């Protein structure tokens, strides 16, 4: 009680600070966009003339697959879970498509790869939803299974060889109107679907409800297992889509292609203001979070910092942003 009354006192005294806090808490996208603007401005000051439409196109093109991968993390984190299998699933779909396209053609290959991703997601969902295995363990186990099977498939198909199909390369690294990346064709509908879906559909509300207070959700008549099964299937399919884009972006078919992006995808969702404890956050912040990560990496490498310093600063940024969120969300 005393804490809340003292909070009220500080609020009346420091209206501006409290106002900022409210913005930070209720619409984390606003300060994030400001942070992003500051980053871009810094970039322009440090390297004058580098910020052009062309540069922006390159940044967006690199950030889009990460943003889609981070969508999986955002959705699962909303329910208090996490998906550590996204990297394995994404690598698998890219690789599977590249190996199947020669014999089956592009569309059947993409369909089979997406089907495999959905199957992995279904199994994860059954484990988490029905058998109540901790999501961390379930997705960790699934990532071992998926990457093991993908490696075994690689050994089987070693003679046929693999190449990233031209359609995926067009999607992942091509541009239209000179600077606009083609991957926007995939990203815009996906992002719109998630943003609108979380806000207005019943399923979106269910995700928040299950994550915010599972007991309250259960007592209100929510059966959480179908919600979780659909969620993890959705998450795996999103990871699969990201896998197609990564394969097209880098023009490589490898079973370990996306592995290094697993933890950055969690970081993008955390920076975007989604709580790992569930019930709080959204996809808008995650998109800006992925852009911030991409621009930070690019800024640090253009300043000539070695990889080591980049990683240290990267980690510090995550801690600072997460600490800022925790500060504004727990004290009220």
């Amino acid at each position, binding site marked *: 009680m005393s804490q809340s009354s003292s909070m009220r006192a500080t609020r009346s005294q420091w209206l501006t600070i409290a106002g900022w806090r409210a913005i930070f808490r209720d619409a984390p996208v606003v300060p994030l966009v400001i942070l992003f603007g500051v980053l871009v401005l810094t970039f322009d000051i440090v390297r004058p003339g580098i910020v052009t439409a062309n540069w922006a196109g390159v940044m967006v093109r690199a950030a889009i697959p990460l943003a889609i991968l981070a969508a999986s993390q955002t959705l699962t984190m909303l329910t208090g879970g996490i998906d550590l299998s996204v990297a394995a699933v994404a690598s698998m779909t890219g690789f599977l498509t590249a190996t199947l396209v020669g014999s089956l053609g592009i569309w059947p290959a993409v369909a089979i790869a997406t089907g495999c991703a959905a199957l992995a997601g279904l199994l994860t969902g059954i484990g988490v939803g029905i058998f109540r295995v901790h999501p961390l363990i379930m997705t960790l186990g699934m*990532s071992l299974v998926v990457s093991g099977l993908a490696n075994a498939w690689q050994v089987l198909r070693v003679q046929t060889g693999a190449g990233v199909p031209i359609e995926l390369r067009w999607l992942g690294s091509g541009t239209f109107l000179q600077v606009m990346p083609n991957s926007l064709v995939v990203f815009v509908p996906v992002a719109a679907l998630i943003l609108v879906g979380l806000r207005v559909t019943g399923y979106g509300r269910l995700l928040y409800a299950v994550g915010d207070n599972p007991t309250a959700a259960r007592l209100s008549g929510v059966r959480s297992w179908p919600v979780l099964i659909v969620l993890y299937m959705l998450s795996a399919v999103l990871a699969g889509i990201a896998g197609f884009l990564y394969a097209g972006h880098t023009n490589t078919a490898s079973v370990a292609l996306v592995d290094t992006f697993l933890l950055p995808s969690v970081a993008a969702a955390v920076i975007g203001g989604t709580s790992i404890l569930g019930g709080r956050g959204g996809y808008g912040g995650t998109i800006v979070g992925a852009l911030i990560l991409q621009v930070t990496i690019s800024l640090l490498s253009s300043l000539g910092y070695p990889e080591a310093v980049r990683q240290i600063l990267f980690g510090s940024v995550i801690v600072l942003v997460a600490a800022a969120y925790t500060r504004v969300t*727990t004290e009220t």
Partner: protein
Amino acid sequence: MNAVSGSCDTTRAGPAETLASWARNNSWSLGLIAFLAVLLVFTRMIQPTYGVAGVQGLAISVLPLALAAVAQAIVIIAGGIDLSIGSMMALTSAVSAVWMQGRSEEFAVLVVIGVLLLGLALGFINGLVIVATKVPDIVVTLAMLFVWAGAALLVLRTPGGASADWLSEVIRGPVGKESLLEWIPKAALVLLVVVGVVWIPIRRSRLGLSLYAIGSNQLAAFRSGVSVGRTKVVAYMLTGLFSAMAGLSLTASTGSGAPVPGPYTLLSVAAVVLGGVSLAGGRGGVLGPIIGVVILSLLRTDMTFMRWDPNYASVAQGSILVGVVMAGTLIQRRQMRTRS
């Protein structure tokens, strides 16, 4: 309540009953040991030449991951999780290899002490940031994973440096030349000694009780007079210490520093869960995770003996991990139902 009354009974009970209750409390570890024994017999059946050399190789290759699993087990028991173990191993391994390069054997003793202190310091920073910022453990250690990995690359850009001869000798080869001693690898003895010297006294002290208390129920622990923040920092320091030992064992077994983090963090989580430690905290020990590591690694060896594609080993590891946790949950649920 049940646990408290149970432990009161054992103080008055005879040795037979004490043994029985120990077996009851450690049923998970005993089951794992039985499974390991079956697996060893099976290995011997499919590969009759598997013997002393095989056991030695297994022990040396398992040592870093076993120490990492102990590190992870301690922090998970205290209700946290540490995703930066792999990076801390990389950093301590790199530092030890750089410091030991071109120095005398005696100086290496100081290096080992220094690296262990470094591990404590890394863990202290992890714990302090978590307690001070109140950010969830998983997020902070995820961020520190990048920080420590970057620091490791600053110390040593590519694998290099050197290990003191005595340090490599400590973990290499069998304990003795006689028929029975030949079967006991030094690496296994080292593991038992460090766990026995560091963990068992802590486990039996007030501090150990506090670690389990904050893992099982923070609020209850706080109300019983446990300093939650301080105990949590100590838990992360112990994790840092065992990660430093794991890093040293990496340097010792390869003879050079490894600045790029291996797959140790996630495998350590898998081994800890397989070893019967609850991810929710407050339950389990360090023996189970060590046996879990040996089982996971022996499975991979068996797959190569059976001329299977070793990639199926990771499929098997993942399936076993999930299967074991599912079985554990089902057993726990049934127990809860029969009790209530």
